[in-house]
């Protein structure tokens, strides 16, 4: 915006009476120059009684210029001077300045929103009991929703389950499949690079089966689902929460946990095992590609070795975890979504938290199952 036009305030003294004469365009386009002119005028003004503000030389004035002149008048009066607006055939300017003086309001001092490190730690610690209570509360509602679903089937939005399975399962299949395929390739390369020195490349197929079926298949699939579908579910419910749709459900007698959370958890419990199973198969293919690419092993030999080491124990070891992994993703994502308060920022924050907690949660669940199976010797 241009500041080329000259903008000044002439300060003139006539005995005890002083005159301030703004000259030029006092508008937003010249705001910086007006600010300087006002500051200069205050320094130049030598008055002890009355100050007349003559408006005749104003070429143009808008709200911005009126604000700056109004504030100037306020400061002069705060110094004990008596100010008078002299319209001088410029009633519009006088009206604007008067309007902004009349509607002035002081800002109330606001508490600082930034906190020191110690205060932040204290704030987080103080919030922990509330967070734990809220989490247990949600868990309680979710648990109570299970028998309610059987006793009162209408409390659950069953019709949404196919759509959710489509979104979480079918639409997520390419991503989880690609991830598991690549994991199989990685295991294959890693296995060859480490076992080749011992002349034990023949054990690579077994390595791929054990690593993929027991651990990596369920874990990688769950992590991808947590990031993809967990984020989607959390943001969907968070948006519903901040736009009062959850309140509307409750006002109509629906229980949000039964109506929304149960179908989502059900869809995850059903689809994560299926996605894992398909991912396991593709990972075997990945291991095959990696091994035959860099060794002399033939595809037939690889496949036979793989088939020999696929056991029900390895398979079930991994698959048993998958419904629980789906469940933890659903509970965390939905819980975070329903806990959103505020606006768009809250939706983003809860979605991020949901993904982070869900990924952490699936790793913890996997670790616990691995520990259990190790202790059981299976």
């Amino acid at each position: 915006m241009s500041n080329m036009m000259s903008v000044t305030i002439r300060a003139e003294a006539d005995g005890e009476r002083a005159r301030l004469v703004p000259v030029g365009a006092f508008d937003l386009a010249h705001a910086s120059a007006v600010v300087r002119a006002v500051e200069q005028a205050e320094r130049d003004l030598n008055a002890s009684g009355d100050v007349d503000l003559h408006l005749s030389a104003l070429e143009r004035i808008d709200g911005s210029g009126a604000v700056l002149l109004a504030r100037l008048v306020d400061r002069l009066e705060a110094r004990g001077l008596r100010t008078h607006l002299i319209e001088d055939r410029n009633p519009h300017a006088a009206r604007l300045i008067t309007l902004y003086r009349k509607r002035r309001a002081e800002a109330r001092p606001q508490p600082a929103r930034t906190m020191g490190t110690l205060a932040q730690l204290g704030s987080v610690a103080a919030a922990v009991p509330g967070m734990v209570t809220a989490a247990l509360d949600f868990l309680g509602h979710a648990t109570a929703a299970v028998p309610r679903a059987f006793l009162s089937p209408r409390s659950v939005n069953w019709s949404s389950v196919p759509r959710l399975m489509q979104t979480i399962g079918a639409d997520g299949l390419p991503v989880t499949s690609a991830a598991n395929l690549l994991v199989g390739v990685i295991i294959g390369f890693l296995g060859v690079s480490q076992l080749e020195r011992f002349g034990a490349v023949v054990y690579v197929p077994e390595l791929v089966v054990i690593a993929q079926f027991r651990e990596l298949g369920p874990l990688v699939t769950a992590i991808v689902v947590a990031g993809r579908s967990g984020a989607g579910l959390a943001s969907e419910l968070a948006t519903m929460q901040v736009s009062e749709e959850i309140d509307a459900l409750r006002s109509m007698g629906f229980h949000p946990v039964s109506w929304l959370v149960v179908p989502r958890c059900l869809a995850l419990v059903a689809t994560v095992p299926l996605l894992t199973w398909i991912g396991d198969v593709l990972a075997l293919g990945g291991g095959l590609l990696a091994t035959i690419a860099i060794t002399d092993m033939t595809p037939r030999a690889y496949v036979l070795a793989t088939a020999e080491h696929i056991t029900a124990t390895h398979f079930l070891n991994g698959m048993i975890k998958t419904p629980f992994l789906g469940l933890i993703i659903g509970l965390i994502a939905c819980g975070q979504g329903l806990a959103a308060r505020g606006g768009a920022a809250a939706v983003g924050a809860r979605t991020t938290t949901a993904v982070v907690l869900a990924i952490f949660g699936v790793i913890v669940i996997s670790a616990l199952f691995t520990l259990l199976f190790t202790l059981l010797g299976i």
Partner: protein
Amino acid sequence: MPPSRPHIVVEDLRIGWGTRVLMEHVSFEIERGTTLAILGGSGSGKSTLLRYLIGLEQPMAGRIDIDGVGEPHVYRGVPPFGVLFQSGALFSSLTLAENLALPLTTWTGIRGPAVQDFVQAKLGLVGLGAFAGHLPGEISGGMKKRAGIARAMMLEPDLLFFDEPSAGLDPISAVELDHLIVTLSRDLGITIVIVTHELASIFLVADTCIVLDKEAKGIVARGDPQRLRDESAIPFVHNFFTRSSPGAPATREG
């Protein structure tokens, strides 16, 4: 003295999506410093027309000129108007002061204490001077709308668009908002285009109005709201202004 050019000229506008035409042959002018109300029933396209006027959508045909400049949908930089959206549309992660300061610090060279002077002045104008440090989530719906008006005025536009400013407000907040709109128009000389179906607001704030009808796909009446209420022979317009429907039961006598 030659007559001043209308502030807004809309000529033979056709709007819609794909093959669906929402309204056509829409033409009207808005004189500088006046308040035009865009009226109509639900689904008549009031808010949609507003979106085209402020350049959020490109019309299928026709012309929209604001202050002699056409094609608002291709504006670069700062449009020459401010807009109050129906919900206020304040940025929820910024305080009211930060919301208002954003256009100022982005589009002008103003920095430092002057920014706060301008912000406080505009908040004071709408009666929110004491809430500068509050987040939008911490204030009521009516206050959000007033803050939205203050933000729309930060760059001193001489044209303001309001989309259903009274929607969702209690009667007292609604009339306070109406008085604020009257102040902006009469004391600051701002041209105002207001989309509304609140009859009390229309008669208080509007100098003139256009009435849209979904079936007619365009303007069915225009002029002074009170004159339309008292003299219009068009049943839809009469029913709109008198809050009567064609099949309404007769009121009980006595």
